């Protein structure tokens, strides 16, 4: 099926990471140089971001990959016979046989990079809608049970069981209920939500429709950060196509379900990734965090019962319904079931998406998949779980990626982002940045976060400057405890995590020894 009617099919990603390193220019160059009928599909990225722009050519034996392809390489590649899958130093062989990709368990990301993200036909041909069709053949209660039995937990960071949340909304009495997707992926080092929205938007739409059926909701919102213009455009186009095909709107797939879906764009405020702040923002207000209770499941958007889930959570739902809860629950360890989409970023040789069952060790991710640092220098620290996650030294590389194991190590898996730093990093500087970031992005509602973060920067400055070091270390410790215990949400509550972990694992960077610090 490579050259149907003599037309060669070539894949060049439209993912914004690929575009940021020249994918558009590569696609144009291939069109100009090919000299034969060509079908250029702008797919999502396979997630091997160090190989972007990654070009794939469809051949009788499968899709052959070339990468990283610079626009100026295209002439030579075409001359060497790339369009027939011929040999070249940039040839990587069959895409699916590349070790890095083959060893993964792609569940949520099964279609990303494979299909044309905006082709409804591709979506259905690759198993799309099977989950929604099955869900609509079940009662809402049965769908909730299925999600509960799958063990799916919120992928946004908190890891709350999705089934319990859905059940709460299901049982709440209200004429109007909402499903909201939190796509305000503000954590540095995380980009899986963006890649799913750009690479397989219909999966998210299908997951939200299933959630709407299960919870009894009729209206949904995807709250996307404004820093993601490509994801916003892709989602809007996909939603329009979904309406055209009867996957959204009145009587979805000729069922009893009616579900309208809208994209809303954030305003560049990190705090709006916190669910109650996001709800305020969706209501057109300042993104000030709400006190809980009441929980959003009972009093959420405009005070109505609301399912709030992350992109990856909702994106995992179609597969769970299509293949059954057991298939998902069979993956993973302990209470962390299924797969997690880990994201390797920062100073890393082979960065990108690693979707695999929970339980893989941190070291495996950073060294076996990541290949160490991009700079070639030794790894010194990795931050797991975003700006509010812990900094860990290489001596903790044995930690399994599992919510509970990380919590026991005073760290968190969070949204699955892993940011690598080499030995040039100044950990006191990173700790200071954590406080500085919190001061800049705090919504200002509660004092521990609003004032504590500012004081935190000052105290760290004094410690590093050697002013009353011992006393100020104690002040910092107290301040961290106060922020952890007294903040209204995770912003102030978790900012101490990077600070305390930097202090615990890299005390020398603070101009002191561990002994002095005690």
């Amino acid at each position, binding site marked *: 099926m490579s050259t149907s009617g003599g037309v060669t099919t070539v894949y060049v990603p439209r993912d914004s990471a690929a575009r940021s390193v020249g994918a558009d220019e590569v696609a144009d160059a291939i069109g100009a140089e090919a000299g034969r009928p060509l079908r250029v599909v702008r797919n999502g990225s396979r997630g091997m971001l160090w190989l972007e722009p990654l070009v794939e050519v469809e051949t009788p034996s499968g899709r052959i990959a070339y990468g990283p392809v610079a626009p100026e390489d295209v002439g030579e590649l075409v001359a060497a016979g790339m369009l027939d899958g011929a040999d070249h130093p940039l040839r990587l062989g069959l895409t699916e046989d590349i070790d890095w990709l083959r060893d993964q368990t792609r569940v949520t990301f099964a279609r990303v990079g494979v299909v044309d993200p905006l082709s409804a036909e591709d979506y259905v041909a690759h198993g799309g809608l099977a989950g929604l069709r099955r869900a609509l053949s079940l009662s809402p209660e049965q769908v909730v049970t299925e999600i509960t039995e799958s063990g799916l937990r919120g992928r946004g960071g908190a890891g709350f069981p999705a089934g319990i949340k859905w059940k709460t909304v299901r049982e709440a009495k209200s004429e109007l209920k909402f499903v909201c997707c939190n796509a305000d992926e*503000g954590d540095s080092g995380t980009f899986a939500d963006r890649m799913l929205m750009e690479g397989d938007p219909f999966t998210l739409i299908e997951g939200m429709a299933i959630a709407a059926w299960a919870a009894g909701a009729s209206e949904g919102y995807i709250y996307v950060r404004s820093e993601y213009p490509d994801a916003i455009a892709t989602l809007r186009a996909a939603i329009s196509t979904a309406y055209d095909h009867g996957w959204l709107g009145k009587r979805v797939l000729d069922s009893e379900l009616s579900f309208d879906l*809208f994209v809303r764009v*954030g*305003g*560049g*405020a990190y705090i709006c990734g916190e669910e109650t702040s996001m709800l305020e923002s969706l209501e*057109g207000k300042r993104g000030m965090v709400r006190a809980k209770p009441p929980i959003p499941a009972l009093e959420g958007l405009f005070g109505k019962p609301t399912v709030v889930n992350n992109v990856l959570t909702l994106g995992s739902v179609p597969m769970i319904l299509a293949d059954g809860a057991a298939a998902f629950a069979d993956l993973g360890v302990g209470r962390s079931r299924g797969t997690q989409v880990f994201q390797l970023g*920062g*100073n890393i040789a082979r960065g990108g998406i690693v979707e695999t069952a929970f339980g893989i060790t941190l070291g495996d991710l950073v060294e076996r998949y990541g290949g160490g640092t991009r700079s070639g220098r030794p790894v010194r620290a990795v931050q797991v779980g975003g700006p509010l996650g812990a900094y860990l030294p290489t001596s903790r590389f044995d930690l399994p990626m599992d919510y509970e194991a990380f919590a026991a190590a005073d760290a968190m898996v969070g949204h699955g982002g892993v940011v690598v730093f080499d030995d040039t990093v100044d950990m006191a500087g990173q700790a200071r940045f954590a406080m500085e970031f919190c001061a800049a992005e705090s*919504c200002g509602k509660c004092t521990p976060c609003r004032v504590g973060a500012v004081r935190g920067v000052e105290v760290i400055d004094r410690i590093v400057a050697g002013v009353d070091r011992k006393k100020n270390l104690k002040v910092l410790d107290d301040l961290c405890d106060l922020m952890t215990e007294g903040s209204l949400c995770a912003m102030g509550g978790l900012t101490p995590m990077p600070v305390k972990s930097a202090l615990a694992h890299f005390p020398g960077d603070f101009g002191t020894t561990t002994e002095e610090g005690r």
Partner: protein
Amino acid sequence: MTSLPTQSLEDRVRSIVASHRDDRGALLPILHAVMEEMGHVDPAAIPILADELNLSRADVYGVITFYHDFRQTPPGRRTVRICRAEACQAVGAAELADRATSRLGIGFGETTADGAVTLEQVFCLGNCATGPSVQVDGRLYGRVSPERLDSIIEVSA
């Protein structure tokens, strides 16, 4: 057709609001639309928005000032945003930030005197494996070396 700028501002703002009449909690989509059309939210738009949406002027002002995206003064002809979050810090974002401020002679949040470039900082563009990252008028650049930054800024200037 000649009309006073204030009148035309009012007409434009009221027509943007009208096109979002059916949206729930419409203020953010409206402000984005105003930014899209006019480049900034003119303070003169605040009482009009308040009137249209039955909000107080303080409410509207509060929302505009809460979000980094909404500005009340016109930006430069191009906006260069440099990612300063952790993943980009790990691959040299601090050097890029220093270079940009010294080349342009302005700090973050400022616009060059000739109105050519507005420089902004941003925390994460979701390009964490292919950093350091820079965004120019919505277009994303990855693996930005200091030399590439120079050429990006030069094109912008």
